[in-house]
Protein backbone atom coordinates (compact mmCIF):
# COMPACT_ATOMS: atom_id res chain seq x y z
CA UNK A 1 0.00 0.00 0.00
CA UNK A 2 1.14 3.55 -0.42
CA UNK A 3 0.77 6.65 1.70
CA UNK A 4 -2.69 8.04 2.45
CA UNK A 5 -3.84 11.00 0.40
CA UNK A 6 -6.81 13.32 0.34
CA UNK A 7 -7.09 14.81 -3.11
CA UNK A 8 -9.95 17.24 -2.62
CA UNK A 9 -9.70 20.11 -0.18
CA UNK A 10 -11.76 23.03 -1.41
CA UNK A 11 -9.60 26.11 -1.71
CA UNK A 12 -10.69 29.36 -0.16
CA UNK A 13 -9.35 32.87 -0.02
CA UNK A 14 -9.11 32.63 3.75
CA UNK A 15 -5.51 31.53 4.29
CA UNK A 16 -6.00 30.65 7.95
CA UNK A 17 -8.84 28.29 7.19
CA UNK A 18 -6.74 26.54 4.57
CA UNK A 19 -3.87 26.31 7.04
CA UNK A 20 -6.07 24.75 9.71
CA UNK A 21 -7.52 22.22 7.26
CA UNK A 22 -4.05 21.14 6.19
CA UNK A 23 -2.89 20.90 9.79
CA UNK A 24 -5.88 18.72 10.62
CA UNK A 25 -5.14 16.52 7.61
CA UNK A 26 -1.53 16.09 8.75
CA UNK A 27 -2.72 15.27 12.25
CA UNK A 28 -5.11 12.61 10.91
CA UNK A 29 -2.32 10.89 9.00
CA UNK A 30 -2.64 12.08 5.40
CA UNK A 31 0.74 12.43 3.74
CA UNK A 32 -0.47 14.32 0.67
CA UNK A 33 -3.37 16.71 0.09
CA UNK A 34 -4.51 18.56 -3.00
CA UNK A 35 -6.11 22.00 -2.90
CA UNK A 36 -9.03 22.02 -5.31
CA UNK A 37 -9.87 25.13 -7.35
CA UNK A 38 -13.42 24.60 -8.60
CA UNK A 39 -14.39 26.46 -11.76
CA UNK A 40 -17.89 26.65 -13.24
CA UNK A 41 -17.56 28.33 -16.61
CA UNK A 42 -20.64 30.46 -17.28
CA UNK A 43 -21.51 31.34 -20.89
CA UNK A 44 -18.33 31.50 -22.90
CA UNK A 45 -16.10 33.29 -20.41
CA UNK A 46 -13.49 30.97 -18.96
CA UNK A 47 -11.45 32.37 -16.14
CA UNK A 48 -9.14 29.75 -14.80
CA UNK A 49 -7.70 30.92 -11.49
CA UNK A 50 -3.98 30.84 -11.05
CA UNK A 51 -3.06 28.40 -8.31
CA UNK A 52 -1.50 29.87 -5.22
CA UNK A 53 2.08 28.78 -4.81
CA UNK A 54 2.20 26.11 -2.18
CA UNK A 55 5.04 27.70 -0.24
CA UNK A 56 2.88 30.78 0.31
CA UNK A 57 0.60 28.89 2.64
CA UNK A 58 3.16 27.54 5.05
CA UNK A 59 6.74 28.39 5.85
CA UNK A 60 7.18 25.00 7.43
CA UNK A 61 4.74 22.28 6.58
CA UNK A 62 3.22 20.35 9.49
CA UNK A 63 4.68 16.92 10.13
CA UNK A 64 2.36 14.00 9.41
CA UNK A 65 1.33 12.28 12.63
CA UNK A 66 3.30 9.09 13.23
CA UNK A 67 5.97 9.91 10.65
CA UNK A 68 8.98 12.15 10.34
CA UNK A 69 8.23 13.81 7.01
CA UNK A 70 6.10 16.90 6.35
CA UNK A 71 2.80 16.84 4.47
CA UNK A 72 2.89 17.41 0.72
CA UNK A 73 0.45 19.88 -0.82
CA UNK A 74 -0.57 19.91 -4.49
CA UNK A 75 -2.88 21.98 -6.67
CA UNK A 76 -5.88 20.62 -8.52
CA UNK A 77 -8.43 22.08 -10.89
CA UNK A 78 -12.03 20.91 -11.23
CA UNK A 79 -14.19 22.03 -14.12
CA UNK A 80 -17.93 21.73 -13.64
CA UNK A 81 -18.98 21.06 -17.21
CA UNK A 82 -22.55 21.26 -18.47
CA UNK A 83 -21.50 21.83 -22.07
CA UNK A 84 -18.73 20.39 -24.22
CA UNK A 85 -17.21 23.79 -24.83
CA UNK A 86 -16.57 24.30 -21.13
CA UNK A 87 -13.67 21.92 -21.05
CA UNK A 88 -10.89 23.24 -23.24
CA UNK A 89 -7.37 22.25 -22.13
CA UNK A 90 -5.26 25.37 -22.40
CA UNK A 91 -1.83 26.23 -21.10
CA UNK A 92 -3.38 27.40 -17.86
CA UNK A 93 -4.32 23.80 -17.04
CA UNK A 94 -0.63 22.95 -17.06
CA UNK A 95 0.04 24.90 -13.90
CA UNK A 96 -2.10 22.45 -11.91
CA UNK A 97 -0.83 19.04 -10.80
CA UNK A 98 -4.22 17.38 -11.25
CA UNK A 99 -7.16 18.14 -13.54
CA UNK A 100 -10.68 16.93 -12.82
CA UNK A 101 -14.00 17.31 -14.55
CA UNK A 102 -17.51 17.09 -13.13
CA UNK A 103 -19.81 16.17 -16.02
CA UNK A 104 -23.43 17.15 -15.63
CA UNK A 105 -24.95 15.30 -18.58
CA UNK A 106 -24.72 11.78 -19.93
CA UNK A 107 -23.13 12.93 -23.21
CA UNK A 108 -20.43 14.81 -21.32
CA UNK A 109 -19.82 11.84 -19.04
CA UNK A 110 -19.28 9.65 -22.06
CA UNK A 111 -16.95 12.22 -23.63
CA UNK A 112 -15.03 12.68 -20.37
CA UNK A 113 -14.52 8.96 -19.96
CA UNK A 114 -13.38 8.33 -23.50
CA UNK A 115 -11.62 11.44 -24.79
CA UNK A 116 -11.03 14.23 -22.27
CA UNK A 117 -7.50 14.70 -21.00
CA UNK A 118 -8.34 14.51 -17.29
CA UNK A 119 -7.15 12.55 -14.28
CA UNK A 120 -10.34 12.45 -12.23
CA UNK A 121 -14.06 12.35 -13.03
CA UNK A 122 -16.21 13.50 -10.14
CA UNK A 123 -19.46 11.80 -9.21
CA UNK A 124 -22.47 13.76 -8.02
CA UNK A 125 -22.92 13.67 -4.27
CA UNK A 126 -25.33 16.49 -3.53
CA UNK A 127 -28.10 15.42 -5.88
CA UNK A 128 -29.63 12.33 -7.41
CA UNK A 129 -27.52 11.10 -10.29
CA UNK A 130 -29.22 12.58 -13.40
CA UNK A 131 -28.09 9.73 -15.65
CA UNK A 132 -27.25 6.09 -15.21
CA UNK A 133 -23.68 4.81 -15.48
CA UNK A 134 -23.20 2.64 -18.53
CA UNK A 135 -20.60 -0.05 -18.59
CA UNK A 136 -19.01 1.01 -21.90
CA UNK A 137 -17.76 4.50 -20.98
CA UNK A 138 -16.79 3.40 -17.47
CA UNK A 139 -14.67 0.54 -18.81
CA UNK A 140 -13.18 2.90 -21.37
CA UNK A 141 -12.14 5.25 -18.59
CA UNK A 142 -10.63 2.39 -16.57
CA UNK A 143 -8.58 1.33 -19.59
CA UNK A 144 -7.29 4.86 -20.05
CA UNK A 145 -6.29 5.22 -16.40
CA UNK A 146 -8.90 7.81 -15.43
CA UNK A 147 -10.30 7.59 -11.90
CA UNK A 148 -13.76 8.23 -10.47
CA UNK A 149 -14.02 10.25 -7.29
CA UNK A 150 -16.59 10.23 -4.51
CA UNK A 151 -16.55 12.98 -1.91
CA UNK A 152 -17.87 12.45 1.59
CA UNK A 153 -18.02 15.93 3.10
CA UNK A 154 -21.54 16.48 1.77
CA UNK A 155 -22.61 13.34 3.62
CA UNK A 156 -21.33 14.86 6.86
CA UNK A 157 -23.17 18.11 6.32
CA UNK A 158 -26.68 16.90 5.55
CA UNK A 159 -28.72 13.70 5.89
CA UNK A 160 -30.45 13.95 2.50
CA UNK A 161 -27.10 14.34 0.78
CA UNK A 162 -25.89 11.33 2.74
CA UNK A 163 -28.52 9.21 1.00
CA UNK A 164 -27.56 10.58 -2.41
CA UNK A 165 -23.85 10.02 -1.78
CA UNK A 166 -24.34 6.40 -0.78
CA UNK A 167 -26.84 5.66 -3.55
CA UNK A 168 -24.71 7.20 -6.28
CA UNK A 169 -21.56 5.51 -4.99
CA UNK A 170 -23.21 2.09 -4.86
CA UNK A 171 -24.55 2.41 -8.39
CA UNK A 172 -21.06 3.38 -9.62
CA UNK A 173 -19.44 0.46 -7.83
CA UNK A 174 -21.87 -1.97 -9.46
CA UNK A 175 -20.66 -0.86 -12.86
CA UNK A 176 -16.94 -0.42 -12.26
CA UNK A 177 -16.54 -3.37 -9.82
CA UNK A 178 -14.46 -1.35 -7.39
CA UNK A 179 -11.70 -0.50 -9.83
CA UNK A 180 -10.28 2.98 -10.34
CA UNK A 181 -12.10 4.58 -7.42
CA UNK A 182 -10.76 7.25 -5.12
CA UNK A 183 -12.49 8.68 -2.06
CA UNK A 184 -11.73 12.17 -0.90
CA UNK A 185 -13.21 14.68 1.43
CA UNK A 186 -14.25 17.84 -0.42
CA UNK A 187 -13.86 19.53 2.93
CA UNK A 188 -14.41 23.24 3.40
CA UNK A 189 -13.77 23.17 7.12
CA UNK A 190 -11.33 21.20 9.27
CA UNK A 191 -14.21 19.40 11.02
CA UNK A 192 -15.30 17.78 7.79
CA UNK A 193 -12.13 15.71 7.51
CA UNK A 194 -12.03 12.12 8.67
CA UNK A 195 -9.12 9.76 9.22
CA UNK A 196 -7.96 7.45 6.41
CA UNK A 197 -8.96 4.22 8.13
CA UNK A 198 -12.44 5.64 8.75
CA UNK A 199 -12.77 6.41 5.04
CA UNK A 200 -11.61 2.89 4.22
CA UNK A 201 -14.49 1.67 6.42
CA UNK A 202 -16.85 4.04 4.59
CA UNK A 203 -15.79 2.28 1.43
CA UNK A 204 -17.31 -0.89 2.87
CA UNK A 205 -20.67 0.92 3.02
CA UNK A 206 -20.20 1.76 -0.66
CA UNK A 207 -19.94 -2.02 -1.27
CA UNK A 208 -16.19 -2.06 -1.90
CA UNK A 209 -14.13 -4.97 -0.64
CA UNK A 210 -11.72 -4.30 2.24
CA UNK A 211 -8.63 -4.24 0.10
CA UNK A 212 -10.32 -2.08 -2.54
CA UNK A 213 -11.56 0.37 0.07
CA UNK A 214 -8.12 0.85 1.58
CA UNK A 215 -6.63 1.15 -1.92
CA UNK A 216 -9.17 3.88 -2.73
CA UNK A 217 -7.46 6.12 -0.18
CA UNK A 218 -3.87 5.12 -0.87
CA UNK A 219 -2.79 3.14 -3.92
CA UNK A 220 -5.34 4.58 -6.35
CA UNK A 221 -4.55 8.14 -5.24
CA UNK A 222 -0.89 7.46 -5.98
CA UNK A 223 -1.88 6.27 -9.47
CA UNK A 224 -3.86 9.49 -10.00
CA UNK A 225 -0.80 11.55 -9.08
CA UNK A 226 1.36 9.63 -11.52
CA UNK A 227 -1.27 10.05 -14.22
CA UNK A 228 -1.24 13.78 -13.57
CA UNK A 229 2.53 13.90 -13.88
CA UNK A 230 2.53 12.07 -17.17
CA UNK A 231 -0.02 14.44 -18.65
CA UNK A 232 2.83 16.85 -19.17
CA UNK A 233 4.93 14.27 -20.97
CA UNK A 234 4.84 12.39 -24.25
CA UNK A 235 3.27 8.98 -23.64
CA UNK A 236 4.71 9.11 -20.16
CA UNK A 237 8.13 8.18 -21.51
CA UNK A 238 9.69 11.46 -22.60
CA UNK A 239 9.39 14.67 -20.69
CA UNK A 240 10.94 18.08 -21.11
CA UNK A 241 12.61 20.00 -18.33
CA UNK A 242 13.57 23.61 -18.39
CA UNK A 243 17.34 23.86 -18.36
CA UNK A 244 19.12 27.08 -17.47
CA UNK A 245 21.04 27.43 -20.75
CA UNK A 246 21.91 30.18 -23.24
CA UNK A 247 18.94 31.32 -25.40
CA UNK A 248 20.55 29.93 -28.61
CA UNK A 249 20.64 26.40 -27.36
CA UNK A 250 17.05 26.60 -26.11
CA UNK A 251 15.79 27.35 -29.63
CA UNK A 252 17.63 24.33 -30.95
CA UNK A 253 15.96 22.08 -28.44
CA UNK A 254 12.34 23.20 -28.93
CA UNK A 255 11.79 21.62 -32.39
CA UNK A 256 12.83 18.24 -30.97
CA UNK A 257 10.33 18.44 -28.13
CA UNK A 258 7.57 19.61 -30.50
CA UNK A 259 7.96 16.41 -32.48
CA UNK A 260 7.45 14.36 -29.34
CA UNK A 261 4.30 16.28 -28.36
CA UNK A 262 2.74 15.68 -31.76
CA UNK A 263 3.03 11.96 -31.53
CA UNK A 264 1.85 11.75 -27.93
CA UNK A 265 -1.11 9.45 -27.65
CA UNK A 266 -3.81 9.48 -25.05
CA UNK A 267 -4.92 5.93 -25.54
CA UNK A 268 -2.05 3.72 -24.55
CA UNK A 269 0.83 4.50 -22.32
CA UNK A 270 3.28 1.89 -21.02
CA UNK A 271 3.92 3.74 -17.78
CA UNK A 272 0.28 4.37 -16.96
CA UNK A 273 -0.90 0.82 -17.46
CA UNK A 274 2.05 -0.54 -15.53
CA UNK A 275 1.27 1.52 -12.44
Amino acid at each position, binding site marked *: *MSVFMDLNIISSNDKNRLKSIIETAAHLGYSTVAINYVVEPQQKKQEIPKPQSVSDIFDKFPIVQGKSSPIKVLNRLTIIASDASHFRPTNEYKSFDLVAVYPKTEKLFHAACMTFDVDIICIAVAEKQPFHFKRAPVNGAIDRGVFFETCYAAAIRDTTMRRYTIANAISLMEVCKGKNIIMSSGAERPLELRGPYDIANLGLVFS*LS*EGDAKAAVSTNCRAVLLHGETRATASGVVYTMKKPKTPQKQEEESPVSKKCMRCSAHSWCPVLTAT
Partner: protein
Amino acid sequence: MSPELEKCPRSLLVCEKSNFLNEKSRHDIHVSKHNFNYKISVLIPDCEALPANISSAFHSFSSYYLVRELPVYQLLEETFIESHVKKGNFYALSYNTKIDEENTIALLSSGQLILSLDKDTYEQLGLEGRPSLYNHKKAMRFVVTLDLTDKSLTPGTKRYQRVLSSLKDRLPLRYDFLLTKYNTGSDEDQTLIKLLSQYSYEEHKPAFSHHTLKNIPCPTLYPSDIQGKTLSCDPHHFLEWLGAVNLDISCENAADSFLSTYVCPEPQSSVSQALLCTVTGFISPENVFVLLQELRQYIDEPKFTPWISLTVHGFMDSPVSWGATEHGFLKGGENLYNFVCFKNQDYWLHMATGAQDGCPP
Protein backbone atom coordinates in the same frame (compact mmCIF):
# COMPACT_ATOMS: atom_id res chain seq x y z
CA MET B 1 -27.19 -4.78 3.22
CA SER B 2 -24.01 -5.62 1.42
CA PRO B 3 -22.47 -8.93 2.56
CA GLU B 4 -19.12 -7.16 2.90
CA LEU B 5 -20.44 -5.20 5.86
CA GLU B 6 -21.07 -8.32 7.90
CA LYS B 7 -17.53 -9.57 7.63
CA CYS B 8 -14.79 -8.45 9.99
CA PRO B 9 -11.06 -8.65 9.29
CA ARG B 10 -9.94 -12.04 10.49
CA SER B 11 -7.90 -12.58 13.64
CA LEU B 12 -6.06 -15.65 14.86
CA LEU B 13 -5.75 -17.00 18.38
CA VAL B 14 -3.51 -19.97 19.12
CA CYS B 15 -3.78 -21.49 22.61
CA GLU B 16 -1.29 -23.92 24.09
CA LYS B 17 -1.11 -25.48 27.50
CA SER B 18 1.86 -27.22 29.00
CA ASN B 19 4.15 -27.27 32.00
CA PHE B 20 7.34 -25.22 32.33
CA LEU B 21 9.27 -28.21 33.59
CA ASN B 22 8.24 -30.37 30.66
CA GLU B 23 11.33 -30.78 28.45
CA LYS B 24 9.25 -30.51 25.30
CA SER B 25 7.78 -27.20 26.40
CA ARG B 26 8.42 -24.52 23.77
CA HIS B 27 7.79 -21.46 25.89
CA ASP B 28 11.39 -20.28 25.62
CA ILE B 29 11.33 -20.58 21.82
CA HIS B 30 8.10 -18.62 21.56
CA VAL B 31 9.44 -15.85 23.78
CA SER B 32 12.78 -15.59 22.01
CA LYS B 33 11.25 -15.62 18.54
CA HIS B 34 9.02 -12.63 19.18
CA ASN B 35 11.69 -10.07 18.47
CA PHE B 36 10.12 -6.67 18.97
CA ASN B 37 8.15 -6.06 22.12
CA TYR B 38 6.54 -2.77 22.95
CA LYS B 39 4.57 -3.29 26.12
CA ILE B 40 4.52 -5.87 28.88
CA SER B 41 1.74 -6.00 31.45
CA VAL B 42 1.51 -8.29 34.45
CA LEU B 43 -1.66 -8.92 36.44
CA ILE B 44 -1.35 -10.64 39.82
CA PRO B 45 -4.69 -11.17 41.60
CA ASP B 46 -4.69 -11.30 45.40
CA CYS B 47 -1.48 -9.40 45.79
CA GLU B 48 -1.06 -6.33 48.03
CA ALA B 49 2.31 -4.86 47.21
CA LEU B 50 4.84 -5.23 44.44
CA PRO B 51 7.12 -8.16 45.34
CA ALA B 52 10.78 -7.29 45.56
CA ASN B 53 12.11 -9.87 43.10
CA ILE B 54 9.62 -8.82 40.42
CA SER B 55 10.38 -5.17 40.97
CA SER B 56 14.10 -5.82 40.58
CA ALA B 57 13.42 -7.82 37.42
CA PHE B 58 11.57 -4.85 35.93
CA HIS B 59 14.31 -2.45 36.87
CA SER B 60 16.99 -4.65 35.37
CA PHE B 61 15.53 -4.31 31.86
CA SER B 62 18.23 -3.08 29.50
CA SER B 63 17.95 0.45 28.20
CA TYR B 64 17.33 1.24 24.54
CA TYR B 65 18.60 3.99 22.25
CA LEU B 66 16.67 6.20 19.85
CA VAL B 67 19.01 7.33 17.03
CA ARG B 68 17.93 10.06 14.60
CA GLU B 69 18.67 9.83 10.88
CA LEU B 70 20.81 6.71 10.98
CA PRO B 71 21.71 5.63 7.43
CA VAL B 72 20.78 2.02 6.77
CA TYR B 73 24.18 1.16 5.28
CA GLN B 74 25.65 1.72 8.73
CA LEU B 75 24.01 -1.54 9.81
CA LEU B 76 26.13 -3.26 7.19
CA GLU B 77 29.48 -1.82 8.25
CA GLU B 78 32.12 -4.43 8.97
CA THR B 79 32.92 -3.31 12.51
CA PHE B 80 29.24 -3.11 13.35
CA ILE B 81 28.57 -6.64 12.15
CA GLU B 82 31.56 -8.06 14.00
CA SER B 83 30.95 -6.34 17.29
CA HIS B 84 27.17 -6.49 17.52
CA VAL B 85 25.31 -8.52 14.95
CA LYS B 86 27.46 -11.66 15.09
CA LYS B 87 27.27 -11.80 18.88
CA GLY B 88 23.48 -11.88 18.74
CA ASN B 89 20.99 -10.29 21.12
CA PHE B 90 21.00 -7.08 19.09
CA TYR B 91 17.71 -5.66 17.86
CA ALA B 92 16.96 -2.63 15.69
CA LEU B 93 13.66 -1.31 14.36
CA SER B 94 12.92 1.84 12.38
CA TYR B 95 10.97 4.37 14.40
CA ASN B 96 7.95 6.40 13.25
CA THR B 97 7.51 4.41 10.06
CA LYS B 98 4.20 2.82 9.17
CA ILE B 99 4.28 -0.70 7.73
CA ASP B 100 1.32 -0.14 5.38
CA GLU B 101 2.42 3.24 4.06
CA GLU B 102 6.18 3.49 3.80
CA ASN B 103 9.47 1.67 4.22
CA THR B 104 10.25 -0.17 7.44
CA ILE B 105 13.61 -1.64 8.42
CA ALA B 106 14.21 -4.27 11.10
CA LEU B 107 17.29 -6.12 12.30
CA LEU B 108 16.60 -9.39 14.13
CA SER B 109 18.87 -11.03 16.67
CA SER B 110 19.49 -13.91 14.24
CA GLY B 111 21.36 -11.44 12.02
CA GLN B 112 18.67 -10.99 9.39
CA LEU B 113 18.08 -7.48 8.09
CA ILE B 114 14.51 -7.12 6.84
CA LEU B 115 13.64 -4.21 4.55
CA SER B 116 9.93 -3.86 3.89
CA LEU B 117 9.83 -1.40 1.00
CA ASP B 118 7.16 0.25 -1.07
CA LYS B 119 7.22 -0.18 -4.84
CA ASP B 120 9.12 2.99 -5.74
CA THR B 121 11.89 2.43 -3.19
CA TYR B 122 12.25 -1.23 -4.14
CA GLU B 123 12.61 -0.44 -7.82
CA GLN B 124 15.09 2.34 -7.20
CA LEU B 125 17.19 0.39 -4.73
CA GLY B 126 17.64 -2.61 -6.99
CA LEU B 127 18.12 -5.34 -4.40
CA GLU B 128 16.62 -8.78 -4.78
CA GLY B 129 13.43 -9.32 -2.87
CA ARG B 130 10.01 -10.87 -3.15
CA PRO B 131 6.54 -9.33 -3.18
CA SER B 132 4.79 -9.10 0.17
CA LEU B 133 2.25 -11.76 1.06
CA TYR B 134 -0.35 -9.11 1.80
CA ASN B 135 -0.53 -7.30 -1.50
CA HIS B 136 -3.99 -6.58 -2.83
CA LYS B 137 -4.40 -6.64 -6.63
CA LYS B 138 -1.18 -4.87 -7.57
CA ALA B 139 2.17 -5.57 -5.93
CA MET B 140 2.85 -2.41 -3.94
CA ARG B 141 5.05 -3.79 -1.15
CA PHE B 142 8.22 -5.83 -1.41
CA VAL B 143 10.34 -7.49 1.25
CA VAL B 144 14.13 -7.72 0.98
CA THR B 145 15.78 -10.08 3.48
CA LEU B 146 19.54 -9.91 3.95
CA ASP B 147 21.20 -12.48 6.17
CA LEU B 148 24.18 -10.60 7.56
CA THR B 149 25.74 -13.73 9.05
CA ASP B 150 25.61 -15.57 5.74
CA LYS B 151 28.85 -16.41 3.88
CA SER B 152 27.73 -14.65 0.72
CA LEU B 153 27.39 -11.36 2.59
CA THR B 154 30.74 -11.32 4.36
CA PRO B 155 32.50 -8.00 3.81
CA GLY B 156 34.64 -8.23 0.69
CA THR B 157 32.41 -10.38 -1.48
CA LYS B 158 30.83 -8.99 -4.65
CA ARG B 159 27.32 -9.30 -3.28
CA TYR B 160 28.24 -7.39 -0.16
CA GLN B 161 29.78 -4.61 -2.23
CA ARG B 162 26.68 -4.41 -4.36
CA VAL B 163 24.34 -4.23 -1.40
CA LEU B 164 26.50 -1.67 0.35
CA SER B 165 26.75 0.52 -2.75
CA SER B 166 22.98 0.35 -3.28
CA LEU B 167 22.29 1.51 0.23
CA LYS B 168 25.10 4.06 0.29
CA ASP B 169 25.12 5.63 -3.18
CA ARG B 170 22.12 4.58 -5.25
CA LEU B 171 19.44 5.31 -2.70
CA PRO B 172 20.72 6.39 0.71
CA LEU B 173 17.96 5.49 3.13
CA ARG B 174 18.02 7.17 6.50
CA TYR B 175 15.57 6.55 9.32
CA ASP B 176 15.23 7.04 13.03
CA PHE B 177 16.01 3.74 14.72
CA LEU B 178 15.30 2.12 18.06
CA LEU B 179 18.25 -0.03 19.11
CA THR B 180 18.64 -2.34 22.04
CA LYS B 181 21.15 -4.94 23.06
CA TYR B 182 20.80 -7.46 25.84
CA ASN B 183 24.33 -7.52 27.16
CA THR B 184 25.97 -9.26 30.04
CA GLY B 185 29.11 -7.14 29.96
CA SER B 186 29.54 -3.39 29.93
CA ASP B 187 32.45 -3.04 27.49
CA GLU B 188 30.25 -3.89 24.50
CA ASP B 189 28.16 -0.86 25.36
CA GLN B 190 31.15 1.40 24.73
CA THR B 191 31.59 0.34 21.10
CA LEU B 192 27.90 0.92 20.47
CA ILE B 193 28.02 4.36 22.03
CA LYS B 194 31.10 5.23 20.01
CA LEU B 195 29.23 4.31 16.85
CA LEU B 196 26.12 6.21 17.84
CA SER B 197 28.02 9.34 18.82
CA GLN B 198 28.32 10.25 15.14
CA TYR B 199 24.56 10.82 15.12
CA SER B 200 22.17 12.41 17.55
CA TYR B 201 20.83 9.78 19.92
CA GLU B 202 19.06 9.49 23.26
CA GLU B 203 19.18 6.71 25.77
CA HIS B 204 15.92 5.64 27.34
CA LYS B 205 14.99 3.21 30.06
CA PRO B 206 11.68 1.34 29.67
CA ALA B 207 8.95 3.23 31.54
CA PHE B 208 7.57 1.24 34.44
CA SER B 209 4.34 1.84 36.35
CA HIS B 210 2.17 -0.17 38.69
CA HIS B 211 -1.01 0.23 40.67
CA THR B 212 -3.30 -1.86 42.83
CA LEU B 213 -6.90 -2.49 41.80
CA LYS B 214 -9.44 -2.97 44.55
CA ASN B 215 -12.43 -5.29 44.64
CA ILE B 216 -12.42 -6.55 41.13
CA PRO B 217 -14.05 -9.74 39.92
CA CYS B 218 -11.52 -12.20 38.48
CA PRO B 219 -12.34 -15.23 36.40
CA THR B 220 -11.55 -18.59 38.00
CA LEU B 221 -9.27 -20.58 35.79
CA TYR B 222 -8.41 -24.25 35.98
CA PRO B 223 -5.19 -25.32 34.26
CA SER B 224 -6.71 -28.42 32.75
CA ASP B 225 -9.55 -26.66 30.93
CA ILE B 226 -8.00 -24.18 28.48
CA GLN B 227 -10.88 -24.22 26.02
CA GLY B 228 -13.33 -23.05 28.59
CA LYS B 229 -15.77 -25.91 28.09
CA THR B 230 -16.55 -26.91 31.65
CA LEU B 231 -14.47 -25.32 34.38
CA SER B 232 -12.86 -22.12 33.08
CA CYS B 233 -14.01 -19.47 30.67
CA ASP B 234 -13.52 -19.19 26.92
CA PRO B 235 -10.04 -17.81 25.97
CA HIS B 236 -11.56 -15.01 23.86
CA HIS B 237 -13.61 -13.77 26.78
CA PHE B 238 -10.67 -14.09 29.12
CA LEU B 239 -8.38 -12.03 26.88
CA GLU B 240 -11.13 -9.45 26.36
CA TRP B 241 -11.56 -9.09 30.12
CA LEU B 242 -7.79 -8.84 30.56
CA GLY B 243 -7.67 -6.02 28.01
CA ALA B 244 -10.51 -4.22 29.81
CA VAL B 245 -8.67 -4.47 33.14
CA ASN B 246 -5.46 -3.16 31.59
CA LEU B 247 -7.24 -0.16 30.13
CA ASP B 248 -9.18 0.55 33.33
CA ILE B 249 -12.57 -0.09 31.70
CA SER B 250 -15.31 -0.87 34.15
CA CYS B 251 -16.65 -4.40 33.83
CA GLU B 252 -19.73 -4.01 35.96
CA ASN B 253 -22.19 -3.69 33.06
CA ALA B 254 -24.48 -1.53 35.15
CA ALA B 255 -27.94 -1.01 33.70
CA ASP B 256 -27.60 2.76 33.44
CA SER B 257 -24.10 2.80 31.98
CA PHE B 258 -23.84 3.11 28.22
CA LEU B 259 -20.08 3.32 28.06
CA SER B 260 -19.06 -0.26 28.60
CA THR B 261 -20.92 -3.54 28.41
CA TYR B 262 -17.88 -5.65 29.15
CA VAL B 263 -18.37 -8.25 31.87
CA CYS B 264 -16.05 -10.49 33.75
CA PRO B 265 -16.50 -13.97 32.27
CA GLU B 266 -18.07 -16.73 34.35
CA PRO B 267 -17.05 -18.50 36.53
CA GLN B 268 -15.71 -15.61 38.54
CA SER B 269 -14.78 -14.76 42.08
CA SER B 270 -14.32 -11.39 43.66
CA VAL B 271 -10.81 -10.47 44.69
CA SER B 272 -10.04 -7.77 47.22
CA GLN B 273 -6.97 -6.45 45.47
CA ALA B 274 -4.90 -7.16 42.41
CA LEU B 275 -1.62 -5.75 41.20
CA LEU B 276 -1.24 -4.45 37.66
CA CYS B 277 2.24 -3.53 36.35
CA THR B 278 3.08 -2.24 32.91
CA VAL B 279 6.36 -1.44 31.26
CA THR B 280 6.64 0.18 27.83
CA GLY B 281 9.62 0.74 25.60
CA PHE B 282 11.74 -1.24 23.18
CA ILE B 283 12.15 -4.46 25.17
CA SER B 284 14.23 -7.43 24.11
CA PRO B 285 12.92 -11.00 24.49
CA GLU B 286 15.71 -11.93 26.91
CA ASN B 287 14.32 -9.42 29.41
CA VAL B 288 10.87 -10.99 29.01
CA PHE B 289 12.36 -14.39 29.75
CA VAL B 290 14.02 -13.13 32.94
CA LEU B 291 10.70 -11.65 34.06
CA LEU B 292 8.93 -14.92 33.30
CA GLN B 293 11.42 -16.80 35.50
CA GLU B 294 10.77 -14.42 38.37
CA LEU B 295 7.01 -14.81 38.01
CA ARG B 296 7.33 -18.59 38.03
CA GLN B 297 9.35 -18.34 41.21
CA TYR B 298 6.76 -16.04 42.77
CA ILE B 299 3.81 -18.31 42.15
CA ASP B 300 5.73 -21.32 43.47
CA GLU B 301 5.80 -19.79 46.93
CA PRO B 302 2.71 -20.56 49.04
CA LYS B 303 0.21 -17.79 48.31
CA PHE B 304 -3.47 -17.13 47.74
CA THR B 305 -2.77 -16.06 44.16
CA PRO B 306 -4.39 -18.67 41.90
CA TRP B 307 -2.77 -17.52 38.66
CA ILE B 308 -0.55 -14.77 37.19
CA SER B 309 -1.00 -13.29 33.73
CA LEU B 310 1.86 -11.87 31.64
CA THR B 311 0.92 -10.15 28.37
CA VAL B 312 3.49 -9.00 25.83
CA HIS B 313 2.48 -6.72 22.95
CA GLY B 314 4.49 -6.41 19.77
CA PHE B 315 4.91 -3.29 17.67
CA MET B 316 2.04 -2.61 15.29
CA ASP B 317 4.42 -1.39 12.60
CA SER B 318 7.10 -4.04 12.76
CA PRO B 319 7.63 -5.97 9.52
CA VAL B 320 7.84 -9.33 11.34
CA SER B 321 5.93 -10.91 14.19
CA TRP B 322 7.42 -14.27 15.26
CA GLY B 323 10.78 -15.11 13.72
CA ALA B 324 10.71 -13.94 10.12
CA THR B 325 6.96 -14.37 9.59
CA GLU B 326 5.75 -11.33 7.73
CA HIS B 327 3.41 -8.96 9.53
CA GLY B 328 1.12 -6.40 7.96
CA PHE B 329 -1.37 -3.77 9.03
CA LEU B 330 -4.86 -3.91 7.56
CA LYS B 331 -7.11 -2.17 10.07
CA GLY B 332 -5.00 -3.11 13.09
CA GLY B 333 -1.55 -4.58 13.59
CA GLU B 334 -1.79 -6.40 16.89
CA ASN B 335 0.58 -9.30 17.56
CA LEU B 336 0.66 -10.29 21.17
CA TYR B 337 1.10 -13.29 23.45
CA ASN B 338 -0.15 -13.98 26.92
CA PHE B 339 1.14 -16.42 29.55
CA VAL B 340 -1.10 -17.56 32.39
CA CYS B 341 1.06 -19.25 35.03
CA PHE B 342 -0.48 -21.58 37.58
CA LYS B 343 0.85 -23.37 40.62
CA ASN B 344 3.03 -26.44 40.05
CA GLN B 345 4.44 -24.74 36.93
CA ASP B 346 1.50 -25.33 34.61
CA TYR B 347 0.94 -22.62 32.06
CA TRP B 348 -1.30 -21.52 29.26
CA LEU B 349 0.03 -19.60 26.27
CA HIS B 350 -2.30 -17.59 24.03
CA MET B 351 -0.81 -16.06 20.88
CA ALA B 352 -2.99 -13.63 18.96
CA THR B 353 -2.48 -11.84 15.68
CA GLY B 354 -4.57 -9.65 13.42
CA ALA B 355 -5.59 -9.86 9.80
CA GLN B 356 -2.35 -9.57 7.85
CA ASP B 357 -0.20 -11.96 9.81
CA GLY B 358 0.94 -15.53 9.54
CA CYS B 359 -0.25 -18.09 12.06
CA PRO B 360 1.83 -17.88 15.26
CA PRO B 361 4.11 -20.88 15.72
